[in-house]
C-alpha cells in the first residue's frame, strides 16, 4: 500500500518523475512523510479520487438516460439523488471526477513545464530574467478568472479550451515560485564549475539547475493542480465548460440554470464535497511534503 502511491499521484506529470530519480534525499523524505497521519490520509483520499476517475466510468453507466424521476432526493435507487432532467447525480459526479482530474493534471502539467522552463532559463540568462519577472508580475496582478472567461468565451467551450486556458494563466504562478529558488541555485559554485566543463547550457540547466529546484516544482504541481480544479470548476459554473462531458462545475451550473441549486440541496452538496475533497487533500499533501522535507519538523530520519 505504501510505495506505489506517490507514483500513482505524480506519475502523470512528466517533469517530477525523472528529476526525482536523481535525488538521493527523496527516500528519507518519503520516510518522514509516512509518519504524518494527516498527510497520509490526504494521499489516500487523493489516490481514491484518481481511482474513481480512472475506473468509475467503466463501472457506472453514463448519466445520459432521461429518467422519469425528476429532482428525487438521495435514496435507495439513486444514492446522490437525481437532477432536473432525471439523471443520476452519482453518475454525474463520478464522470465529473474523470473530467476534473484530467483538466487538473493536463493543465498543471503544461503550466509546470512552461513555468519551470521560463523560470530556469530566465534565472540562467540574466538578460531574459528582467523581462520574465516583469511579465510574471504584471500577469499575476491581473484578475485571472475574468481573463480566462474572456478567452474561453472567444475560443468556444471544450475540454481542450479549458485545459489550455487554465494552463495559459497558471504558469506565471509556477514561474514565480520556481524563479526565486532557481536564482539562488544559479549563483552557486557547482553551477560555475559546470560552466567550466561544458558550453552546453541546455545540459547544465537540465542536469544541474532543474534537479535543484525539484522540491519547489513538486509543491507547485500540487498548488497549480488544485488551483486548476477551482478555475475549471469556476468556468464550468459560469457555463463555459465542455457541454459534452460532465464536470463538477457543470452539475452546479445546470442546478443554477434550473433554479434548483438551493431547493435540491444534493445537486450542490455532492459536487461541492468532491471539489473540496480533491483540493483539500492536495493542499494537505503539499503541506505534509514540505514538513517532511524540512529537517526541523521532520524529526530524526
Amino acid at each position, binding site marked *: 500500500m505504501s510505495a506505489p502511491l506517490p507514483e500513482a499521484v505524480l506519475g502523470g506529470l512528466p517533469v517530477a518523475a525523472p528529476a526525482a530519480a536523481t535525488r538521493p534525499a527523496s527516500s528519507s523524505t518519503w520516510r518522514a512523510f509516512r509518519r504524518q497521519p494527516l498527510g497520509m490520509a490526504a494521499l489516500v483520499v487523493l489516490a481514491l479520487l484518481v481511482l474513481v476517475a480512472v475506473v468509475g466510468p467503466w463501472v457506472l453507466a453514463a448519466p445520459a438516460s432521461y429518467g422519469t424521476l425528476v429532482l428525487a432526493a438521495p435514496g435507495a435507487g439513486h444514492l446522490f439523488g437525481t437532477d432536473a432532467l432525471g439523471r443520476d447525480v452519482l453518475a454525474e459526479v463520478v464522470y465529473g471526477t474523470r473530467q476534473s482530474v484530467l483538466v487538473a493534471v493536463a493543465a498543471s502539467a503544461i503550466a509546470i513545464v512552461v513555468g519551470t522552463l521560463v523560470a530556469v532559463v530566465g534565472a540562467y540568462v540574466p538578460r531574459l530574467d528582467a523581462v520574465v519577472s516583469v511579465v510574471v508580475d504584471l500577469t*499575476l*496582478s*491581473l484578475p485571472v478568472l*475574468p481573463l480566462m472567461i474572456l478567452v474561453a*468565451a472567444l475560443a468556444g467551450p471544450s475540454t481542450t479550451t479549458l485545459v489550455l486556458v487554465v494552463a495559459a494563466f497558471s504558469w506565471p504562478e509556477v514561474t514565480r515560485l520556481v524563479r526565486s529558488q532557481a536564482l539562488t541555485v544559479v549563483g552557486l559554485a557547482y553551477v560555475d564549475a559546470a560552466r567550466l566543463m561544458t558550453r552546453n547550457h541546455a545540459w547544465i540547466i537540465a542536469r544541474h539547475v532543474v534537479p535543484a529546484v525539484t522540491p519547489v516544482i513538486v509543491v507547485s504541481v500540487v498548488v497549480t493542480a488544485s488551483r486548476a480544479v477551482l478555475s475549471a470548476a469556476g468556468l464550468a459554473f459560469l457555463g463555459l465548460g465542455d457541454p459534452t462531458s460532465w464536470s463538477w462545475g457543470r452539475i452546479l451550473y445546470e442546478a443554477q440554470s434550473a433554479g434548483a441549486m438551493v431547493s435540491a440541496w444534493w445537486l450542490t452538496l455532492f459536487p461541492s464535497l468532491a471539489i473540496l475533497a480533491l483540493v483539500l487533500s492536495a493542499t494537505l499533501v503539499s503541506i505534509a511534503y514540505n514538513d517532511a522535507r524540512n529537517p526541523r519538523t521532520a524529526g530524526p530520519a
Partner: protein
Amino acid sequence: MSIASFALRRLGRGVLTVWFAVTVTFLLLRLLPGDPALAVSSPTQTEATRALLLTQYGLDKPLAEQYLLYLGQLLRGNLGTSFTQSVPVLDVLAARIPWTILLTVGALVLTVVIGIPLGVLAASRRGGFLDKAVQVFGVTGQSLFVPSIGVLLLFVVGLKLRWAPIGGAYSDGTYGGQWYLSVLHHLVLPGLSLTLVQLGSYVLTLRATLVDALADDYVVLARANGLSERRILWKHALRNALLPATTLIGLQLGFLVGGAVLTETVFAYPGVGRGIYEAVTQLDFPVLQGAFLMLALTVVVANTLTDLVYGWLDPRVKAS
C-alpha cells in the same frame, strides 16, 4: 526617497499594468480563432452585414493601426457598443462597477477585521486548541469553492434562519438611511462568502509571521524590559507581522475579483460579475472585454492603495 516619489513610482507601475491588460485583451481578440463578427452571426446573417460589422470594428485596417485606434478609443472612455443591448458598454458597466467594488472592498475589510484577531489569538496560544482550530480552518478555507460556500450560506443563513436576504443588492422602495441599511443587509451573505474564501490564507500567513516575530530579539528585549505580553503582541510583533499579510492581500486581489464574479452569480448581485455571466450566455464580446478591463482597473487601483498602505506600515520600503 520622499513619499511623493514613492507614490509616483507606484502610480507608474499601476499605469503600466493597465496598459498590459489593454494590450493583452487587444491581442487575444485578434489572435484567437473567434471572429467577433461571426460570433454574433445568426444563420440569416448576410455577407453584407458581416462586412459592415467588420468595418464597424475597424477589423479591415492593419493591426498596428487598429491597436492605436483602440488605445485612442479607450482613452476617450469608449469601450464599444454592447451587441445585445445596443448601448455603450461603459453605460452597461458603469451601473455595475460600484457594486463589485463595494463587495470586494467589503470582503477585504472583513478579512482584515476578522483575520487580525484570529491570527493574534492563534499565535499567542501556539500549539493550543485554538491554534489548531485556526490552522484547520485556514487550510480548509483555502480549498473552498466560492459558489459552494455561497450556496451553503444562502441555504443556512438566508433560507433557514432568515437572517439576511438571499439575492439582489437592495430592497425596492426604500429611501435615504433605510436604503443604505438595506444595501448593508444585502451585502452580508455575498460579502461573507467572499471573506471565507480569502480569510484562510490571510490568517495562516499572519499566524506564521507572528510566531516568527515572537521569537525575535526585540521581543525578548521588550519582555526583559517588563512590557506586558499584550502590549508586545499587539503593538510590537503585530506591526511587523502585518507586512507579509499585506503583501498577500495585494497578490490575491486578482483572485478576490475572480471570486466576486462567482459570488455575484450565486446571489444575483448586480455587479460586473453578474454582467459577465449574462454576457457569456449572450456571447456579448464588447461587454466581456469591457468588464475585464474594468475589473483589471479595479485591481490595479486597489493594488496601488495596498502598496501605499505598505509604505505607511513599513517606512523602510520608502527608503529603499
